[in-house]
């Protein structure tokens, strides 16, 4: 029996993979706990989860894109949150004494704490932003990113000569994707595919609304309160409006933001994604890794309209796999979007390619493979004697 502590940011897309991973570990008889802002984690993890709270800082919702978004995610979120949460993370590791700390790639406080306390740790990549160094062909941006990590390391009072890239554990790096959809996945990183598991507190959905004689489209572009998102959703409604004879569309959006929808379209603030996907023929997404991989894990092709972070990378991965097409989030109008939707729905090749990616996920092993690698780490690198768990 071993103990695994997940250090995660307060973002559903980063917490969700740890739920499936935790379930696989608990199924093997191991113990799990999380360290992060309880306010955000508790609704995702449910009342029974053990959470070591870090407290919560307010972070401005992002409306940037491109490199400006890369800068703001590091300067306004990753770095300040790591500095803010580091004492609580170190306290959790010292108190609970996990055998392995599983550190989200955007929670470098976990890496610093595990290194300082001498506890084996693994990196969990829930996005593709830091896989294959997409910024490497921007040398000064790449240097800036390393400077941000160096700043964190120095501010934590860590020895300068022990500095390393906090995004990668030297022991084990797990990624929630496979080369089938992320061709740049570096050798040495264990791509286990998406880690799916039943989620706590999922909303209802009126499944009998679906007309079995029609195709079903799910439009999920995140919950961004900016006018570019509103524009995209409205163009998408116009794109699907004349297609009521052949399809039904579900928009993940507050119903009041999309008034006067025709009867074959519906807007829901939240949907039970994993329960819906078996009924869906096409997902229109901004290309977050979770949504892309959850869709492909169900063999569902995509239209991807990327906005920021790893979304353009994931969009290109979907296109390269033949499992969908890419559309311009800020620019595509109703005509272009209708063409993209009818193209993917009309050509069975996209669905066949999505099924191939699904096979790669099944081979990669998902939660079970990730759990096995973590358990293996406990035997390869037993926790330092000074931190071995008390038997009391």
């Amino acid at each position, binding site marked *: 029996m071993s103990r695994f502590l997940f250090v995660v940011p307060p973002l559903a897309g980063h917490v969700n993979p740890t739920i499936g991973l935790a379930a696989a570990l608990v199924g093997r008889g191991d113990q799990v706990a999380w360290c992060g802002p309880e306010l955000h984690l508790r609704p995702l993890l449910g009342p029974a989860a053990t959470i070591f709270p870090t407290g919560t800082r307010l972070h401005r919702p992002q409306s940037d894109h491109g490199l400006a978004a890369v800068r703001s995610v590091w300067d306004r979120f990753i770095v300040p949150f790591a500095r803010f949460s580091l004492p609580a993370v170190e306290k959790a590791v010292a108190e609970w004494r996990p055998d392995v700390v599983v550190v989200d790639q955007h929670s470098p406080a976990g890496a610093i704490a595990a290194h300082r306390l001498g506890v084996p740790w693994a990196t969990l990549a829930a996005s593709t932003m830091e896989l294959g160094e997409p910024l490497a062909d921007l040398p000064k*941006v790449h240097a*800036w990113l390393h400077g941000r990590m160096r700043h964190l390391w120095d501010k934590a009072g860590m020895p300068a000569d022990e500095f390393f890239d906090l995004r990668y554990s030297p022991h084990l790096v797990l990624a929630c994707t496979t080369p089938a959809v992320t061709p740049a996945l570096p050798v040495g990183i264990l791509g286990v595919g998406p880690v799916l598991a039943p989620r706590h507190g999922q909303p209802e959905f009126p499944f009998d609304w679906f007309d079995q004689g029609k195709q079903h489209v799910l439009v999920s572009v995140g919950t961004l309160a900016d006018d570019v998102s509103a524009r995209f959703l409205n163009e998408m409604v116009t794109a699907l409006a004349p297609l009521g004879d052949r399809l039904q569309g579900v928009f993940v959006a507050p119903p009041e933001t999309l008034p006067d929808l025709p009867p074959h379209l519906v807007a829901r603030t939240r949907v039970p994604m994993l329960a819906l996907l078996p009924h869906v023929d096409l997902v229109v997404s901004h290309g977050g890794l979770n949504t892309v991989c959850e869709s492909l894990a169900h063999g569902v092709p995509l239209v991807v309209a990327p906005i920021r972070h790893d979304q353009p990378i994931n969009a290109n991965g979907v296109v390269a796999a033949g499992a969908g097409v890419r559309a311009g989030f800020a620019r595509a109008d109703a005509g272009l979007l209708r063409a993209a939707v009818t193209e993917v729905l009309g050509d069975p090749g996209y669905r066949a390619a999505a099924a191939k990616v699904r096979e790669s996920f099944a081979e990669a092993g998902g939660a079970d493979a990730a759990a096995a690698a973590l358990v293996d780490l406990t035997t390869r690198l037993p926790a330092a004697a000074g931190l071995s768990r008390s038997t009391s």
Partner: protein
Amino acid sequence: MALFDEVAGILREVVGPCGGCPPEITPNATLEGDLRFDSIDLTRVGATLTARYGDRVDLAGHVRGLELDEITGFTVGQVVAYVEQRA
């Protein structure tokens, strides 16, 4: 200015028709922020500029070598100045 209009025409082609979204192509418009350029757009514009103005014009290479703030703040006017200098 003739060069500005030529470059603006190339940018307009990449930005393309859309649901009334991108602002006008003015000298002060930033590629990433105002025109919503991504790396693919930059590569396409760069290739078109190279084809028209010669191999010494490598916009994408030039921009990739800049600091983060210089990249996010890169304007249409700077594209024109770069082409003018290199062509």
